[in-house]
């Protein structure tokens, strides 16, 4: 695993315009960064990332199966009681999923370790499935990269194929796509997934989360008063559970992407649960619930994460007693009232002074590629830069 500086394509911003990639620069700072790329060997990809990704996902599904049937665990996962049935039913019915992204720390040697699982609303799917793919094609054509260069990235192909399967499982329904207003990134992400669904032959529509309505039969509606019967929502389940319309959930014949059971594994309580069920697994970091601090070895340094944290918000470093060790190094945010978990501190590897995080994608249960984020800070947040990668 190497970080290799390289010249940018002179026309990449015009290309980004052509393909509707609006959020490559945000708040005046680079988000898409092609001034360097990461290079992996095929062995690193296949043995250290691809295979463990599928294995971790399979373990996560075992956690779901255990948690949905255990009230005390559902409480530990901070899931409101009135939605237990929705989650349990979606799991027992086998409601299909679309995709996930595991965040891993990996430096090219040894075992990749799971930081967390973005199983409900993963973003950077466009940058990964399409944009970095185009970067590779262009730079091979420009002879900047060796013709043998490859990339671990079958994401778009797998997404389209998955939509074909989902269509067969859900015939005769229009698939609505939804995200919140005022965010170019989420709108772009949802547009990309809608494009993939259209390529798979699905009939689609779009609605903003805030514009969703309800009729007198508990059917959710879009702005044209069309009943929503199947929806992809880039909006977390734990937010939906808090919103006013949560009282109507589960009272209509509706299919969700991601399905409600994803609320179990997009939740940070997944981490101590995995450690409990699969102790000392090489791809897991020791993790503990708040009432398990007594189990923690004396000198272990920890990271304290809120159960519902998103994009690296409200993360603290602590000692083995849970006491915040460095008040200056933490990230702000609006999370934490729901409780915290502790995970062994395992700093991200550094390449040329950058902290590097690997996102490993799954479509349903198949590993489908990786994305790389870099940050000057030790906690990568939502404005970390995105860099492409190759296999050579």
């Amino acid at each position, binding site marked *: 695993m190497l970080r290799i500086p390289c010249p940018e394509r002179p026309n990449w911003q*015009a290309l980004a315009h*052509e*393909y*509707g990639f609006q959020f490559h620069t*945000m*708040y005046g700072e680079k988000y898409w960064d092609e001034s360097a790329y990461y290079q992996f060997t095929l062995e690193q*990809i296949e043995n250290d990332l691809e295979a463990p990704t599928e294995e971790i996902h399979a373990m996560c599904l075992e956690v779901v199966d255990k948690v949905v049937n255990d009230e005390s665990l559902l409480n530990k996962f901070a899931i409101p009681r009135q939605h237990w049935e929705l989650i349990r039913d979606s799991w027992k019915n086998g409601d299909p999923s679309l995709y996930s992204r595991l965040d891993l720390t990996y430096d090219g040697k040894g075992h990749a370790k799971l930081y967390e699982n973005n199983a*409900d*609303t993963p*973003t950077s799917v466009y940058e990964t*499935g399409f944009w970095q*793919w185009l970067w*590779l*094609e262009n730079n091979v054509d420009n002879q900047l990269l060796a013709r043998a260069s*490859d990339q*671990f*990235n*079958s*994401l*778009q*192909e797998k997404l*389209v194929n998955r939509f074909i399967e989902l269509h*067969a499982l859900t015939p*005769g*329904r229009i698939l609505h796509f939804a995200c*919140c207003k005022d*965010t170019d*990134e989420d709108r772009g992400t949802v547009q*990309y997934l809608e494009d993939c669904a259209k*390529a798979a032959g699905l*009939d689609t529509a779009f609605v*903003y*989360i*805030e*514009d*969703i*309505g*309800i*009729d*007198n*039969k508990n059917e959710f*509606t879009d702005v*044209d*008063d*069309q*009943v929503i019967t199947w929806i992809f929502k*880039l*909006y977390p389940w734990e*937010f939906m559970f808090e*919103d*006013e*319309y949560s009282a*109507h959930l589960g009272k209509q014949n509706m299919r969700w992407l991601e399905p409600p059971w994803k609320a179990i594994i997009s939740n940070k309580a997944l981490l101590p649960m995995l450690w409990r069920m699969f102790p000392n697994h090489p791809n897991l970091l020791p993790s503990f619930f708040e009432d398990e601090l007594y189990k923690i070895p004396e000198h272990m340094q920890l990271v304290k994460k809120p159960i519902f944290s*998103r*994009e690296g918000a409200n993360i603290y470093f602590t000692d083995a007693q849970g006491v915040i060790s460095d008040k200056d190094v933490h990230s*702000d945010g*609006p999370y934490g009232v729901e409780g915290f978990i502790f995970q062994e501190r395992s700093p991200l590897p550094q390449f040329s002074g950058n902290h590097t995080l690997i996102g490993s994608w799954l479509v349903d249960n198949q590993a489908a*590629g990786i994305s790389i984020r870099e940050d000057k800070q030790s906690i990568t947040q*939502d*404005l970390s830069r995105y860099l492409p990668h190759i296999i050579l």
Partner: protein
Amino acid sequence: MKRSSILDLNLLRKHSRVFALAPVSLAVLMGCSSGSSDEEVKFVMSVDDCENQTSLGREACEAAYEQALADAESTAPRYRFERDCIEEFNYCEDRGSYFIPIMAGYIVAEVIDEVGDAIERKYRYKHSHPSYLYTGRGANRNKIMTSDGFVIGSPGKSSYRMSREALKPKPKVTRTMSRGGFGSTASAKSNWGSSGKSKGWGG
């Protein structure tokens, strides 16, 4: 190869291109690009009829029937008075505040799933729509018709051609009582601190 072999650049292009760079060789359409805008469908009057007339198995025929029956509830033409319904479709059902024609049968479009080799050919239905026999006056008398009035043809043929457009799922329309019940948790979270530098709610 560990990456997508070919991607449809046209599918994702949002603006006409302003210059010419290499990827012309990649511009190959994938997915449903068979050119023709028509599809072959069959009109069947029962699950048994479906089994006889199509390559679908019992289970698929039953599923297609259930689908058509469920769709009929929300998409069938609605009449305020029974006599108006009878005048056009002869057999009608009372739904409390309105009347709908009784389904004469359903139309199915079938497709073969490509699961590797030819031995494992699996048929499934791609579309299933409720259909009615129109008995009103005029040129469409005794023709098969879909919920939205699309005329398929006279009964008795082994198959019919229908445009893709007419085969699309029919949107179910209702009256919205309120809006805005989702999204408040996100907007509450976005108000913390002063940076405002959050890109979205994905992660």
